[in-house]
């Protein structure tokens, strides 16, 4: 299935809003959407809601043989699954460009930053090590999957407990959770990625772009940082040129955001630990006994909407009437005609009598007129055909007519001729 394309109107609207420092959901430039972190019933399962974006991360482990060149290091494996549930554009079982990009980014953020002590995952050097696998499933894509995935992955890794093992000679015993308490991974620091979207060749910057904003952005800068303000990875994509100052400013913003998010993660982990200690139900199952009804729940609108009708009416009353004059037709290059943008719609003029309609149409749509003019040059007999294909969208003009049709001396004559021909036809 294909994703619904963004219309030109929406695109223009979004870009104009961004120019006016406004965002669709009422956020400020540097605001994140609401982040919610919750845990599943088993260890190493984490759900992250970033506004409407929703991802799930699950950590699992397995005893495997280590890599030959690193005999006493555990293996980390990351997999981002772009499930078709998240967006109709995602296909199952196909490595899309986006999924490769996100996977690589997550690997750089979490594996290459050495935030996890892989040596502690070694059981028998050269023979048995733990392989930690992180599966990130996207459930709903409303933009900025990278940040949501990185938060989910690192939180799940912090939450995860691996089974305890003991070695006696060559014998390895893996204990079940009932026999011995499982052991958490040793994590040195928590890298979190922060995304910055750039618009208009880097003139405007937004933190945490939503899906709509991602579609109209020119470039993306992703900075992974930990709370000690150490940059773990930095990536700019989309082919924009950034100034040194812009990158510096972004890294400063990232520092603030990362410390906020880290605090949130720690709080969520602490709450979960308390809940588990108390022995109650935890994770997403906890919403069950509360008999919550969410079907008729309405989300709060992020933008103040109480006086929107009055404001709209005020604008309509105060605003000046739309100009009646017709903008001059745009012919970008001789040889190319266009119908649509920049021209006035003449469809609503059916009430006028036939002659006026024809005349006006000829005045309004320069392309049609040009078309007729050129065709007239070719041969009179074709006119009949032309009037049938009036509604054609793209018209290739005869390149032998270099000057603008408005300036042609014979315009009125030819136009009249065309009109009369049409009338004859009718």
């Amino acid at each position, binding site marked *: *299935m294909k994703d619904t394309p963004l219309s030109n109107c929406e695109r223009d609207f979004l870009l104009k809003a961004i120019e006016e420092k406004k965002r669709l959901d009422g956020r400020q430039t540097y605001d994140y959407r609401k982040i919610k972190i919750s845990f599943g019933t088993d260890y190493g*399962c984490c759900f992250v809601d970033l506004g409407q974006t929703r991802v799930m991360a699950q950590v699992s482990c397995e005893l495997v043989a280590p890599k030959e060149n690193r005999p006493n290091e555990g293996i980390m494996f990351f997999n981002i699954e772009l499930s078709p549930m998240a967006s109709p554009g995602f296909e199952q079982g196909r490595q899309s460009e986006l999924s490769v990009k996100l996977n690589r980014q997550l690997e750089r953020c979490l594996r290459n930053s050495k935030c996890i002590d892989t040596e502690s995952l070694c059981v028998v050097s050269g023979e048995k090590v733990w392989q930690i696998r992180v599966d990130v*499933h996207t459930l709903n894509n409303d933009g900025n999957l990278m940040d949501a995935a990185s938060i989910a992955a690192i939180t799940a890794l912090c939450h995860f407990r691996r089974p305890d093992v003991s070695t006696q000679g060559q014998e390895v015993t893996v204990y079940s959770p009932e026999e011995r308490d499982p052991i958490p991974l040793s994590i040195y620091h928590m890298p979190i990625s922060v995304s910055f979207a750039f618009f208009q060749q880097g003139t405007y910057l937004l933190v945490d772009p939503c899906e709509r904003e991602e579609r109209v952005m020119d470039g993306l800068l992703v900075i992974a940082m930990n709370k000690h303000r150490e940059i773990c990875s930095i990536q700019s994509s989309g082919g924009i040129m950034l100034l040194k100052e812009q990158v510096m400013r972004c890294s400063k913003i990232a520092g603030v955001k990362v410390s906020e998010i880290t605090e949130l993660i720690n709080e969520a982990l602490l709450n979960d630990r308390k809940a588990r200690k108390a022995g109650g139900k935890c994770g997403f199952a906890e919403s*069950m006994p509360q*008999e919550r009804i969410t079907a008729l729940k309405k989300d709060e609108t992020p933008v103040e909407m109480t006086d929107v009708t009055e404001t709209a009416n005020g604008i309509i009353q105060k605003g000046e009437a739309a100009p009646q004059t017709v903008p001059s037709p745009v012919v970008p290059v001789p040889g190319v005609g266009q119908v649509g943008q920049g021209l006035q719609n003449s469809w609503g003029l059916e009430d006028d009598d036939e002659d006026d309609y024809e005349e006006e149409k000829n005045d309004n749509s320069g392309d049609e007129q040009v078309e007729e003019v050129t065709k007239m040059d070719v041969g009179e007999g074709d006119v009949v055909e032309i009037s049938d294909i009036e509604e054609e969208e793209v018209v290739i003009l005869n390149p032998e007519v270099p000057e603008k049709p408005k300036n042609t001396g014979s315009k009125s004559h030819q136009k009249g001729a065309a009109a009369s021909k049409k009338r004859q036809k009718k």
Partner: protein
Amino acid sequence: MTPSACDKSAFSTMEVCGSLTVSLREFGCEQSLLSRPDGSASFVQGDTSVMAGVYGPAEVKVSKEIYDRATLEVLVQPKVGLPSVRERSQEQCVRETCEASLLLTLHPRSSLTLILQVLHDDGSLLSCCLNAACMALMDAGLPMSCLFCGVTCAISTDGQIITDPTAAQEKESRALMTFAIDSAKHSVLMSSTKGSFSVHEVSGLMTGKKECAPFQTNKTVNAKPKRPDVTNRLH
């Protein structure tokens, strides 16, 4: 088989049925919780939890187009790793059930996609998938001839029938059966069995199944369906 023997075994089956406590774990559901899909639901049975999303009717690939009805595609995403044979067989079970209840002929040459994401598996996964699928299809507003529900039963080694088993109970069981039952006639739309069992045990189960089924009718569009008193209905 002599009539008396038959009677006797039938009696013993009934006895089994009588001693069985038709109890389901606490279940709940949340609908339209995702913004992108046309319909979405998550269904929780005890600790087992499945999330479902539906897209469609939408355009279909030419290779998958069916000229007189919609093409239904079901995807089951496991929690860890990539989809394997187990997921493929679950997909098929869910697809056949949905195809039986959806009025696919109303949307010829279009595609419906149902994605099921396993959030936690603590037994009775297939029945939870079926229930989540039904709720998501309802949320998407697709025309259906009837609703359906899934019920999983396990027969333990000593002949006890356990409805809605947990993962531990499933592991110890002798046979495991999942049925999809429609809401209109309480007939069986799909069955999937594993392990060995006798014919009488199945017929005994069937009556139990049909008693479990009415809970589906209690599922209204308003999120949380009430838990019916299944045990009372059986006796």
